[in-house]
């Protein structure tokens, strides 16, 4: 099939960008979306032009690196699918496709379709962990964890940190990302000692990085390739409230 692509091109963080139109010719339905871009890029290099820079690594939907807004929707709007897992059989001959980077203030554009998501790393650094040094851990079965709890923790832990949630949110909020980590650890016995400190610090860092606040629009859940549920945001809110009350009491 043949397609017409409109792609965001921007040389670096400081230069202006614009949409540029390309033809993608002889695209096979078995190709992945990124393989289709590979084909376009090979053609560009042959013509002496610079290829379109986009982020990708595993191409298996697990590393969270790919980050394309396709036809206005982060990861393109296919259920539980990252951009790298879309196959061209989902498109048809003659389609026009718009491809843009995540657009959220705290994720500045690096080049073309690549953005800088280090804000997410800094949110985890603020407290998204269990403070346990290597070496002193008790036996793995010393503390039984009910299967339901572990399953819930796993549901939340499945977040791949791609940033689609923030890219989809009209407020530019990354609360689903924060909630996923908070809930992963809050559902495990090992996560309890730091539970309330963690939620306060992570939310504080989230705001500091310039992400907006959550007004329960659920756009995030709709685009999340790992189908992380907004119920985790509710859990975060409960924990946050308790934590705030506790720290207010401690301050008295």
């Amino acid at each position, binding site marked *: 099939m043949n397609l017409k692509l409109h792609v965001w091109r921007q040389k670096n963080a400081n230069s202006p960008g614009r949409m540029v139109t390309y033809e993608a010719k002889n695209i096979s339905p078995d190709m992945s979306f990124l393989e289709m871009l590979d084909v376009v890029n090979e053609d560009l290099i042959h013509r002496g032009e610079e290829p379109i820079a986009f982020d990708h690594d595993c191409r298996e939907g697990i590393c969270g690196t790919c980050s394309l807004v396709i036809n206005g929707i982060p990861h393109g709007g296919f259920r539980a699918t990252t951009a790298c897992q879309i196959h061209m059989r989902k498109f048809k001959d003659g389609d026009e496709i718009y491809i843009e980077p995540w657009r959220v203030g705290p994720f500045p554009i690096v080049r073309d379709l690549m953005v800088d998501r280090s804000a997410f790393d800094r949110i985890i650094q603020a407290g998204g962990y269990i403070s346990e040094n*290597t070496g002193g851990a008790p036996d793995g079965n010393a503390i039984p*964890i009910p*299967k339901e709890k572990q399953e819930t923790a796993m549901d939340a832990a499945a977040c791949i940190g791609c940033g689609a949630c923030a890219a989809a949110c009209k407020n530019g909020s990354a609360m689903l990302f924060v909630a996923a980590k908070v809930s992963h650890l809050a559902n495990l016995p090992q*996560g309890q000692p730091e539970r309330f400190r963690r939620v306060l610090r992570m939310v504080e860092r989230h705001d500091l990085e310039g992400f907006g606040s959550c007004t329960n629009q659920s756009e995030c859940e709709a685009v999340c390739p790992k189908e992380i549920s907004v119920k985790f945001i509710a859990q975060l809110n409960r924990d946050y409230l308790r934590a705030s009350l506790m720290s207010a009491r401690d301050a008295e």
Partner: protein
Amino acid sequence: MSEIKLDSKVPSGPLAEKWDRHRFEMKLVNPANKRKYHVLVVGTGLAGASAAATLAELGYTVETFCYQDSPRRAHSIAAQGGINAAKNYQNDGDSIYRLFYDTIKGGDFRAREANVYRLAQISVNIIDQCVAQGVPFAREYGGQLANRSFGGAQVSRTFYCRGQTGQQLLLGAYQAMCRQIELGKIKPHTRTELLDIVIIDGQARGIVCRNLVSGEIRSYVGDAVVLATGGYSNVFFLSTNAIPCNVTATFRAYKRGALFANPCFTQIHPTCIPVSGDHQSKLTLMSESLRNDGRVWVPKKKGDTRHPNSIPEDERDYFLERKYPSFGNLAPRDISSRSAKEVCDEGRGVGPGGRGVYLDFADAIRRDGKAKIRERYENLFEMYERITGENAYEQPMRIYPAPHYTMGGLWVDYNLMSNIPGLFVLGEANFSDHGANRLGASALMQGLADGNFILPYTIGDYFASGKKLGQGNRPPLDHPEFRRVEAEVTDRIKRLIACKGKRTPTEIHREVGRMMWDYCGMSRSEAGLKHVLQKLPEYRESFWRDVHVPGTGEELNISLERAGRVLDFIEFAELMALDALTRNESCGGHFREEYQFTEEEAKADPTGKTIKGEAKRDDENYCHVAAWEYRGPGETPVLHKEPLVFTEVKPTLRSYK
């Protein structure tokens, strides 16, 4: 002749006591002095991230480097199946000794006994550590950790987090790193690629990197350099590795004098989704946990194009069950892969191009119900459907072997130090524990063992042994050696940009990779390897005429990154083929067509364990590690042999019949 002497530094004493004894005998760095030592950790996969976090916890100062935009995205993330540990929670007869024995045997008796034993010992601590960090391993209803059996093991010792074990383990290590970053003990560098290593007065003292965003070339100095940069499966172009995975770090170290061990030991994974066309950019693994319930078969008849569901039972060949009755569909990876190739070579392969075999769940669905199978493998079935458009609940999957893991890597001693003092190598990047073939779920184990529990001890011994290290002893960044290496790196980039040939780096990579797959992949012959060794120097030369890299070196340039990696792969491929040609035996993942059992030999074996066409090891002449020394451009590398001595287990025919 070269003066390098390989000393494995394996401690004396009984096998089970070696590691304890060694830990006692190693020198310690006084806690207050630890912050004076600075460690450069390159790679933040399981091995690198766990090492960085643990070193920082101990008090060392650490800098980390990775080419992704975040440490959390290293390719360890892609591991689906699980991680082994000799916990014996299932009470099914597992023990440290059994894990040790399985790993040694699985590796076809080409690994160091003492290393493997230590790995099995440490495995139990890893699980405890991960649980404490919040890794959400699968649990039973009683709240206990769940296990499954995996890739060639007859006990249930594999721990897992749905189909995302690698991701969850890596997040555990990454989060531990994040905590140390917040505490100011680790300084992370992302989108930063190592391009060379700096050795001063015989010790590894620094690295030269390119900032992938700005293009800046910069040096970093430390008291030790740790490479945890993963494997080199992308030498075949198509593999289950991520596209940017590369051999650059380890190959650069090799060119600076580190020995490269067993480069021909590569693992081909039996359960990958077959290639669909020329556009293919990488291959996708289907976790081999699927083999617990799927049955592998091809039609008995050549060129049978009927739909799989309409091929009657008695016209199917369940070739693994037929050839290996006791292991059946769980036969080790190398054996399963080769068997699949064999039936396809006979013209009985299925799917486009006839390069595929069926993995059939119909019996399991009949036995356990669709719901159970869905619960076990839902995400894998979904992934398969997404890629192929086929529903594996309704018809068998098609699978074919693909390059997946590399057992070879930089040579290290028992302390995980290469022959260059101060250069440590961890995880898939080293050659250490898997011999000629790695068992499933043991790479994650090795990465975390190296990073969490081995390096943190052995690096202290290196620092404490007084070789002018630590604060105040570090060479300045304008040391002539840093300057010289920076200039070489910059010059190479300039030359790549200046080429302006007619081919893209990817095109060249695809062509060389396919040649390596054909002649140095699942099976190898003397003639094929000689052919490759003749072609590769031509590619090495023509690369500089043919390649085209648009843009400049002073900006984010994806073609430039690729070109540099491809060039290293081409040069490295030569070493790999040479090693394969020199190893005149078949063992594990290294199958030389000249060395297999004949029909007569199989018939003559009174135990009945020998199978025609099976790999024929030569313990008399090849029971050693082949460690190669670089001797300059165009020169033949020098082979150093580390003999493998087995005191505890006797190398036997690795029979899975």
